[in-house]
């Protein structure tokens, strides 16, 4: 059935036109890739863990996997803007919110893994550990920031918040530093891997130094 025909195109329905357009954009396929890359590992992880096939201690394994996963996604999210600028690929920016939301999802799973499987709903222990152990407090602070960022990530909220949205979302840099410190602080002696992450985080901050300069000037 032919309904409205747009100038210069063949006899296609608007729906099919839209679909065609979406399917041929790079953003669409990049997003598909991000969904798969973030979700498939989780399916695999929880399948193995639930069936007791994931290392001798599946609890430790899921906490570590989601923790590292959150941090990797976080770094990737924060790289989007400089990457799209330097490579002049503006479309990359359209993947940033998705990556950010997956960062939050992984951090949420990390936290829930700890509550459900490590302390096993012992709420007194859960709260006690977060309050008493500095590395946990720092992790919680990072999580709270991520939560606020996720809650304000929708277009409607963003529009309503106006300028304060950007101000709030600049705290993502504080959150990533806190997450790096939390990781570094959590290990017993094996500081090289968290050390590499801290170095990456510092490199990222350096990459965005102009932004911070503007930010600090703007504040005063």
């Amino acid at each position, binding site marked *: 059935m032919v309904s409205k025909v747009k100038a210069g195109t063949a006899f296609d329905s608007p729906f099919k036109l839209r679909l065609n357009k979406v399917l041929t954009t790079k953003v669409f396929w990049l997003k598909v890739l991000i969904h798969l890359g973030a979700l498939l590992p989780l399916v695999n992880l929880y399948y193995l863990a639930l069936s007791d096939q994931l290392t001798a*201690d599946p609890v430790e394994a899921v906490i570590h996997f989601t923790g590292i996963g959150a941090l990797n996604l976080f770094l990737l999210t924060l790289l989007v803007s400089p990457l799209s600028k330097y490579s002049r690929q503006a479309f990359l920016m359209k993947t940033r919110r998705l990556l950010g939301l997956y960062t939050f999802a992984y951090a949420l799973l990390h936290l829930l893994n700890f509550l459900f499987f490590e302390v096993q709903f012992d709420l007194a222990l859960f709260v006690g550990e977060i309050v008493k152990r500095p590395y946990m407090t720092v992790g919680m602070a990072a999580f709270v920031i991520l939560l606020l960022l996720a809650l304000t990530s929708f277009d409607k909220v963003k529009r309503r918040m106006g300028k304060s949205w950007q101000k709030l979302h600049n705290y993502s840099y504080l959150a990533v530093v806190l997450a790096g410190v939390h990781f570094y602080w959590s290990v017993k002696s094996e500081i*090289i891997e968290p050390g590499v992450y801290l170095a990456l985080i510092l490199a990222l901050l350096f990459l965005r130094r102009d932004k911070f300069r503007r930010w600090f000037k703007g504040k005063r």
Partner: protein
Amino acid sequence: MLIKIPKKSELSENQVTQESVYLQRRQLLKGMGFIGAGTLLSSALSSKAHGGVFDLFKEKEKPVFTRKDLSYSGQAGAENFPEKLTPEGKVISHNNFYEFGAQKHQPAELAQGFKVNPWQLKISGEVDKPITLDYDQLFSTFSLEERIYRLRCVEAWSMVIPWVGFPLAKLLKMAQPNSRAKYVAFETLHDPEQMPGQSSRRLGGGIAYPYVEGLRIDEAMNPLTLMSVGLYGKTLPPQNGAPIRLVVPWKYGFKSIKSIVGIKLLEKEPPTTWNLLAPHEYGFYANVNPGVAHPRWSQASERRITTGGLLARNRIETLMFNGYGEEVADLYKGMDLRKFY
């Protein structure tokens, strides 16, 4: 003495998951895509020591260390130990043995080529009769017995393991400690060629080598203190400290030093590895104590590793002296265990 009233046997052979299965699954986990980039990064960095990213899909068949059957006498009623044993596959694939990598799955992967024969264990220092035991003598000098013990890691997880070995007291008595012998110092083999963690700072987790531990002599002489040469009826695999290791069941696991080459009797308290690294976190005594928290986590409870996967409700209260108070509490009479943690 160490066996509580038997309730019911919960030992079952089909709980045993073979180590190779865990190793395979580990590979699965490694290949899980970019989220796991951290893990991939670490394997790439350590590709010198074992297969890195590029070997991921052509992992070679690695030789597995051969364990021999041991003959030993069963502790009366040992098979009726009231708590569920940790499956053998988990005992030998979840190890803190930084000499073979600081991540718990690494020793099982990196230690399979470890050579334990020939071996020499020297007992020296403040003794009248210094002794050296070679590999065969580790198994033939004393009669071997099975002991099922709880193992409580300082990281707040625990296992139940059937060890095979002999009391350290027998060995020490044979060397005849003199009157100056107040402490016993232990040392792990130092062989960076065989132990990749000793040559790579990254694999070895940043602790000092060789690993050293120590006990007071009365702790060492306690009948519970075991020199283990096997577990689950067979000789120890390297990741668990072959050919001979210490087992002190009322102390955190890091006291139970592995792959021992030297035992020295001393007049003064010897240095110990984790205490050197972080004295505010790890003391010389390291007795399991639910009332004294590690600065970064509570020690009041623990997760017992057996079976059941992610949903296992396995958090249990930690017992004072790991449940061995009846046998060892007297050793610490009058001591402030908050100060001497």
